[in-house]
């Protein structure tokens, strides 16, 4: 099997060998989250005996790059495609092309706004963000100013994780005021610098929410650099990674939402295999999310979905 993310062997397979080839086009590949998705996909590939390739654009702003990747993937005539759309509309013509060629498409991570995908393996980002908001509200006693450091202003995940948080606060927590939303591109240093600016501008700030790994760690970094005492500012995050896990254990961060990236990757390939075999699939596969804190971080159920 092809477990190392696209050895050249897969081409032979795709050329008509007996191992089916599944091309996966994700929203990224550099970040830990996507690497965990890739890991799950590879697990399933081993288990079900398929070849896979896994690729994604450099940033979640590169819609065009993702479209090119999808195009190339289709040109390789795969047995199935796994696709996490940055913009469903933008991918419309290519999805149509896949359908015309009889290549089943499995959507993952976030929904593809189209009838073409046979199923969608995803986390409900908005609900997950609302959970983070709920935990934050509880921690600060339903009162005070909070701010958001979001990784992206335009991508679906960025928008959902922002809106899920903001909408929860607006609907349920009249005592909480959102004073600032800034975007750091998921870059830790940049997120740290802007979190420091937010804290400087709002000395009475109660909490900050970081919408992905890089943003959350950036916020933690800001707290460290400003020498704030644990508890002075409540930080909640998203995703995992060693730094975030450490911050939670050290008490710098209250807790974070984690999705199940390995599960997403696994379910995507599993569904692709089922689709290749012509099996019926449910319209969506919920891969779930968890709220984890220092208390439950070592639970087997949680530990299984965290990545370092």
């Amino acid at each position, binding site marked *: 099997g092809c477990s*190392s*993310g*696209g*050895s*050249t062997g*897969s*081409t032979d397979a*795709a*050329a008509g060998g007996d191992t089916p080839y599944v091309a996966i086009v994700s929203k990224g*590949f550099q970040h830990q989250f996507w690497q965990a998705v890739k890991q799950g996909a590879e697990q399933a590939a081993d288990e079900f005996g398929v070849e896979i*390739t896994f*690729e*994604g654009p*450099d*940033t979640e*702003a*590169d*819609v*065009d*790059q993702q*479209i*090119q*990747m999808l*195009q*190339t*993937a289709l*040109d*390789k*005539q795969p047995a199935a495609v796994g696709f996490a759309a940055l*913009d469903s*509309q*933008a991918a*419309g*013509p290519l999805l149509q092309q896949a359908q015309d060629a009889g290549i089943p498409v499995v959507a993952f991570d976030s929904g593809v706004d189209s009838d073409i995908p046979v199923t969608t393996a995803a986390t409900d980002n908005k609900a997950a963000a609302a959970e983070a908001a709920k935990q934050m509200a509880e921690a600060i006693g339903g009162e005070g100013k909070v701010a958001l450091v979001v990784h*992206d*202003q*335009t991508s679906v995940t960025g928008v959902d994780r922002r809106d899920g948080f903001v909408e929860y606060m607006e609907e349920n927590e009249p005592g909480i005021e959102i004073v600032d939303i800034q975007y750091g591109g998921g870059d830790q240093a940049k997120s740290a610098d802007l979190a420091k600016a937010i804290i400087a501008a709002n000395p009475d700030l109660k909490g900050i929410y970081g919408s992905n790994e890089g943003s959350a760690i950036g916020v933690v970094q800001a707290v460290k650099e400003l020498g704030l005492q644990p508890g002075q500012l409540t930080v909640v995050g998203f995703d995992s990674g060693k730094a975030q896990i450490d911050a939670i254990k050290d008490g710098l961060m209250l807790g974070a939402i984690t999705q199940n990236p390995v599960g997403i990757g696994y379910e995507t390939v599993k569904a692709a295999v089922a689709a290749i075999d012509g099996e019926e699939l449910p319209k969506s596969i919920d891969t779930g999310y968890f709220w984890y804190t220092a208390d439950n971080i070592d639970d087997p159920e949680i530990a299984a979905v965290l990545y370092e």
Partner: protein
Amino acid sequence: MTLTTETPTPKPAEARPNAARGALRGSLQQLLAFASLIVIVIFFSIASPHFFTTANIISIFTAATVTGTLALGTTFVIITGGIDLSIGTGMILCGVMAGVFLTYWGWPLWAGVLGAVLFGALIGVVNGFNVAVLKIPPFIATLGMMLIAAGLALVISGTKPIYFKETPDFQSIMNLSIIPGVRFPLGVAVFIVLIVLSALLLSKTIVGRYTFSIGSNEAATALSGVNVVKWKIIIYTISGLFVGIAGVLSASRLSSAQPTGGMGLELEAIAAVVIGGTSLQGGKGSIVGTVIGALIMAVLTNGLRIISVPQEWQSVAVGLVILIAVYLDMLRRRSA
């Protein structure tokens, strides 16, 4: 009396470039970039049966269309000895403007497209003004514009993609298949027309002549009575027009105006221009070269994906090919 009857007549040993040699050298230069392209194509064709197929070749051209269009326009600017870093985000802004005109303001298709292209020209005019009149160095003038355009694209779109709900035909510009059966998209045909037009513009018109002249010796061109300020603005405007067209093509391809991205595209386009033998010092360059350069970049990206090179290695490979291609070009020039 002539000058050379006094002095020894030219002998074979006097290896100086003459007209014929110059022309030959010109085509040799393109030949070399062309040879690189052929080598790369042959390599990938052997490495994967999926590479040299009609569908994939069309994919390559489709991929080359947007960057290639940007590269065509910026070839003019680079030949003047300037540079245009604003083409990537400028293109994004033009796409957003197409969305604004067509979807928000409900203009008819032709007007919206024209408007977006002219908006690109406007960006070019501002760049040209900053460079030619305010004398801000091109690198900085267009770096500033790069940031401004990136910001404005977000501001104007409200940080959301704009979809072309009112004009579903908009997506045909890039995607319409004009040859039944082979998926040959209209956008690629547009690109080919642009290549021909810009080649004519550069080699046969007064704009082209002054482009080379300014790049060759700006002060002397000005002393010869050419209104360098005016022509530089015109040349940046041409680059802007291509930015506008690329913006329309890209938005059409994605059936949506994406307000982000575009950063880094300028470097890709400039790399295509330079691989094609155009000198960043100005004074030298050709459209054919730029097209070959753009194809080399597109083939490389596509081929590496087709043969499933791990993605982290792809950027290493592209970097190496850029270095090697330009180094070979240098070698040839020195030995010539």
